[in-house]
């Protein structure tokens, strides 16, 4: 299975830092104008390159996720945990045992709100991602049905946050999960969610539709 190249990850890491500087720095406007011009040229160049067709594979793997080996689009390019996606903080997810996973993340200043704390939406997104890893043991694609997060205290930026997720119960094609979010000072949030098994046929249809749109240039 093809992996994302190391330089894509390096670029993602650099863009992550650039995003932080885009929010935290306060130089003269000319600096940003000049930078924007350079970046716009770079974007033009990259747009001439072929589009990435998503590779999908659900197979017995050795990547620590159990039955299902994720394609790189699901892991390396995830907007939450992907090292090759500049939007990702990134969250590091580890599956501890069957039906449980732990994520750790240090949120950068670029996801800070006006109050100075991490945007609660990013905490919710990270919880959703950990649940995805928890459910990897099922070996089938799943989709979030309900995500319910209770915030107990503000979440600090630039400090390690730990998210533990687990399966509470399973009933037919529906799985109920729970999670706890903590920092050194104590709990930040509790969450529970409901996930539905999508089925590989449906997942493949999404995949085909996505690639058709890419080929059509939309």
């Amino acid at each position, binding site marked *: 299975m093809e992996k994302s190249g190391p*330089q894509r990850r*390096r*670029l993602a890491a*650099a*863009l992550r*830092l*650039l*995003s932080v500087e*885009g*929010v935290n*720095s*306060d*130089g003269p*406007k*000319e*600096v*940003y*104008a000049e*930078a*924007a011009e*350079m*970046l716009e040229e770079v*974007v033009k*160049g*990259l*747009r001439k*390159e*072929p*589009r*990435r067709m*998503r590779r999908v594979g659900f197979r017995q793997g050795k990547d620590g996720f159990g039955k299902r080996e994720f394609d790189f689009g699901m892991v390396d*390019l995830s*907007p939450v945990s992907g090292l090759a*996606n*500049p*939007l990702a903080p990134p969250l590091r997810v580890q599956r501890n045992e069957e039906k449980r996973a732990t994520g750790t993340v240090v949120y950068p200043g*670029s996801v800070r*709100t006006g109050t*100075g704390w991490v*945007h*609660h*939406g*990013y905490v*919710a*997104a990270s919880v959703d991602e950990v649940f995805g890893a928890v459910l990897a043991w099922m070996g089938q*694609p799943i*989709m*979030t*049905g*309900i*995500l*319910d*997060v*209770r915030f107990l205290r*503000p979440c600090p930026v630039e400090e390690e946050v730990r998210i533990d997720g687990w399966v509470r119960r399973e009933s037919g094609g529906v799985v109920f999960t729970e999670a706890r979010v903590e920092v050194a000072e104590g709990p930040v949030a509790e969450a529970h969610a409901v996930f539905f098994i999508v089925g590989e046929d449906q997942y493949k249809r*999404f*995949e085909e539709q*996505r690639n058709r*749109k890419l080929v059509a240039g*939309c």
Partner: protein
Amino acid sequence: MSGKPERDGFLTERRRFAQAVRELCAETVACDAPDELFREVADRVEALVEKLVAEPRRFRTVASSLDEEIRMEGRRYHYGDLLDFSPLAGLANPLAPPMSIRKEDDTKLVATLVFSGAFEGGPGLAHGGYVAAAFDELLGLTQSLTGEAGMTGKLKVRYRSPCPLNTELRMEGRVHQKEGRKIVARGTMHAEDRLVADGEATFVVLEDEVYREKTSRFGEA
């Protein structure tokens, strides 16, 4: 920063810069360039980071941006931070999709946004976590229409149908209830006529002192 920066030029260039970074983030995920090209781009971006790191730090009070669209008379808000540099709505934050938000009436906000391919979860679909994040943003701004500043206490999102990428999504948020220090806001997200998700959030209004304490560690309050 002392005093207010020159508003128009400041925000125009910051927004343009953020948009360029945003597009580059999207291309990093969307294109299939050879590693050598990614290396060249990474070299240039790293050099740019070094340059910006040498600039002064931005304090919390900066020019506001969208108050022409939302004027809440909030004595405690710095709109620039809430909106322009927000990681969801902010035109000046490269991570933001971003969101265009307008006030429809005294209890209702309407927003539009497009998730690029960088937000992909399932194939061709927006990551459910970012859908939740968009609700947190919109409902958080919606609750502030009451004139109070609250923090999210509870957020519940029900996903009704897959959320497409590269498609305009329309969101609505409305103040549902205000009782003591609790404000409840509800909202929906549609792709054309199709309901993608609905959400409800409960916000806890902060006392002035608590708000000041929470924000003071980040610079000028």
